[in-house]
């Protein structure tokens, strides 16, 4: 085995070398610094150089931080679920339609990717703020007589992120639907399964990997998102990404910021592993 590896030509090794070096210097080493900084005691803005686990204890014991961690994951899960629920029917339609507009409709569905996340998020801000479109509409038809406070809130963050991440769900689910032989659904129908049973017994299980993939993608991006929570959220709806920035840039407490970064990294990796294990079992 070792001999076989050593006898390989050198070119493939060189091809891997450059990206590997890039990853090492710009990802592995900074991550190692981050992780090590999270175990160093800090006195205000000064790193003392003493090893400790106090940073983690601080983060997990204070309700403000605990809530931010919990809120981040709840928003991530909600965004993942909303993205899947909205993008599945859309992807199904786009894959199965024979309309001559199909190409245009696919481009249209993916067009949110073209606009900057800041622009899209401010679009939601315009819609959801106190004098925004939603409140104006509800007031004018008389459903409410006081403007609702839709901003800042976790709901606004969830809406903004779901909108921004919808194309990822559409893309991954379209890929899995494209891989599904339409005759399999036809076979189920010819055997007496109605449209809903065909979907539940055949289409859904066979596109499950796409659902898991789309969920993971949306979830992973949502929990690490900074701009949308910063714009649509506020001091009362901090998430991990906005807290990390506060630690690093405002409080200059690198130790706490690093610890929070490490929690974000480790817990999202853990969740990804769990979910992909669930997805993998269904595919079997």
């Amino acid at each position, binding site marked *: 085995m070792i001999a076989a590896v050593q006898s390989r030509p050198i070119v493939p090794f060189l091809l891997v070398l450059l990206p590997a070096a890039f990853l090492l210097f710009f990802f592995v080493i900074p991550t190692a610094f981050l992780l090590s900084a999270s175990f160093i005691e800090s006195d205000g803005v000064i790193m003392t150089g003493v090893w400790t686990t106090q940073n983690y204890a601080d983060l997990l014991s204070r309700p403000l931080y605990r809530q931010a961690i919990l809120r981040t994951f709840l928003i991530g899960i909600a965004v993942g679920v909303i993205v899947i629920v909205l993008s599945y029917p859309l992807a199904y339609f786009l894959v199965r339609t024979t309309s001559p507009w199909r190409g245009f409709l696919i481009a249209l569905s993916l067009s949110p990717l073209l606009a900057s996340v800041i622009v899209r998020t401010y679009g939601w801000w315009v819609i959801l703020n106190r004098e925004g479109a939603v409140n104006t509409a509800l007031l004018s038809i008389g459903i409410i007589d006081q403007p609702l406070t839709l901003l800042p809130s976790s709901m606004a963050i969830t809406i903004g992120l779901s909108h921004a991440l919808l194309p990822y769900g559409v893309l991954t689910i379209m890929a899995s639907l494209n891989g599904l*032989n339409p005759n*399999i659904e*036809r*076979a*189920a*129908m*010819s*055997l*007496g399964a*109605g449209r809903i049973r065909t979907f539940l017994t055949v289409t859904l299980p066979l596109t499950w990997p796409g659902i898991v993939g789309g969920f993971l993608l949306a979830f992973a991006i949502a929990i690490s998102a900074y701009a949308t929570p910063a714009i649509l959220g506020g001091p009362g709806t901090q998430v991990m990404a906005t807290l990390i920035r506060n630690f690093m840039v405002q409080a200059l407490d690198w130790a706490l910021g690093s610890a929070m970064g490490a929690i974000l990294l480790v817990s999202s990796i853990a969740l990804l592993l769990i979910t992909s294990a669930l997805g993998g079992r269904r595919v079997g």
Partner: protein
Amino acid sequence: MADPALRLQALVKRFGAHAAVDGVDLAVALGEFVTLLGPSGCGKTTTLNLIAGFLAPDSGFIALNGRLVQDLPPFKRDLGMVFQDYALFPHMSVADNVAFGLKMRGVSREETATRVAEALSLVKLDGFDARRPNQLSGGQRQRVALARALVIRPAMLLLDEPLSNLDLKLREEMRGEISALQRRLGIATVFVTHDQDEALTMSDRIAVMSEGRIEQIGTPAEIYERPATRFVASFIGSINIVPAKVAEVPVNGFARLETPAGPAIAHVGSASSGRSVMLTIRPERLKLAEAGGAPAGAVAWSARVVRVVYTGARLEVQLRLADGSEAVAEATNDGRTSLGEGQGIVAWFRPEDAWIIAGA
């Protein structure tokens, strides 16, 4: 008279301006095996999809056992279908695949188990219950697909080119098995194929399709020996087609013809009228003889051997006729034939072996 298992009447399906199925009429009797045969794009698969309910016709009627079904969804038609790519459920075991239709019908657990076992034994797959489709060979998948379609005891069996993904030897084996199974169960079957050998060997009747229409429907022998049109004649098997003019009013079903290769007498065949016709003769009915060796009453043309192609049991003799046109004769390789290229020879046939079709 009992209703046929299937009746199609004036069936039309358009895709945009193109009529994929353009007025198809067909009746399949109870227990009959009917093949839709034609080149790709002739509308045979579209016709099958209309019967199965995966497509809705633009006009026309589809009746299964006398019940109009053209407006019913596929899951209410009670048909067993086998797809070209088998379309097995990859996430289910063989037993669950076969049980699927029974589950949808609410059949009890015990009866399902019995019938699944019966169906698997019918296709010689006893003991394969727990396997997954991806652990099976092509032939085994084919059998699972058959068992899955048959276990629901459908009103009718639809087969969409089920043999085209198998290798030659297996294809011939499955051909016989499907035929035997169909006859044993006595289930009316519509079989779609572009393979003329499958059509000729398996069918009770063949419907030859071209450009959305049925060109001719008949038993394999009728289709092969009495083609109605030039398309049918040339699509099935190889055939010599010689342009001809009718010289005299036909008598007793035989017509006297003038052809560039020489005068001829042939069966009037499917040409009802007209002076310009086509004389068709199958290569195996075109015989070769020494000069003056043709029997009395036969039509004899002088010809020259262009090439002899050795195919094992048979020799395919390519000929040039008097007018320079080419013809093919097929001779049994009896070990005594010695034909040299460029050799002058007589090509002859009996008038009853030549069949006239309408001119192009």
